[in-house]
């Protein structure tokens, strides 16, 4: 399984796939994609890396346990939902910046919500896979 080609390829694949996943995440509001798919692609990238290089090496990329991504994502989603309350609008009203940002496009509370989903999905998948890999 851990052939040289695979390992080398996995090393290059990881950043490419991560970049791709962010791309998928950001374009989700206009074209197919979104937090769920983006998160899944990102986690597949990490899983691929860990299979090729061993779990220890993958963990080194992270400075922290991926489990932390779950509460982070959940909080981000929750706050993006709560933010309209600050401007006296009901829970989860969409808020948008007036002008589009370069590269990203329109930015609004829905985008932060989607990023939260993205983080939770990565956290969930990696937590599951890593715990299994560790226990084998």
């Amino acid at each position, binding site marked *: 399984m851990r052939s040289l080609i695979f390992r080398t390829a996995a090393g290059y694949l990881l950043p490419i796939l991560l970049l791709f996943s962010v791309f998928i995440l950001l374009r989700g509001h*206009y*074209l*197919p994609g979104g937090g*769920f798919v983006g998160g899944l692609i990102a986690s597949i990238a990490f899983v691929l890396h860990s299979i090729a290089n061993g779990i220890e090496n993958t963990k080194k990329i992270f400075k922290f346990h991926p489990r932390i991504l779950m509460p982070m994502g959940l909080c981000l989603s929750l706050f993006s939902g709560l933010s309209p309350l600050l401007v006296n609008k009901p829970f989860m009203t969409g808020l948008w910046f007036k002008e589009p940002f370069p590269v990203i496009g329109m930015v609004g509370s829905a985008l932060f919500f989607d990023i939260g989903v993205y983080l939770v*999905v990565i956290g969930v998948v990696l937590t*599951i896979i890593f715990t*299994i890999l560790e226990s084998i």
Partner: protein
Amino acid sequence: MEILLSFITGFLYASGIYLMLRRSLVKMILGLILLGNGANMLIFLLGRMVKGEPPIIPDAAKTLAGIYADPVPQALILTAIVISFGLQAFAIILMERAYKFVQTDDLDQMNSTEEDI
């Protein structure tokens, strides 16, 4: 196409149930996966099939018009797929744990709640 698809949905259900009724734990979980996919297909089918018209608003327009695929069942299925992943992951790990403790994957022998864990 719809007719064939409803056949295949029924087939997914049938095989899922058949596998769930087997004694082996692994088969049971495979059955669970098949059943889940069957349910997704059923929802998808009942939302009607539309070819090549995804529910994405074209650049020029502000609303979807004409023929387009129903976005509601799609959102439902997307949720279902992700949740079923959580369920399957949990079931797979549970199965592994259960086998480790009970030293059997025979469902018929896992019928006691008094097992010493």
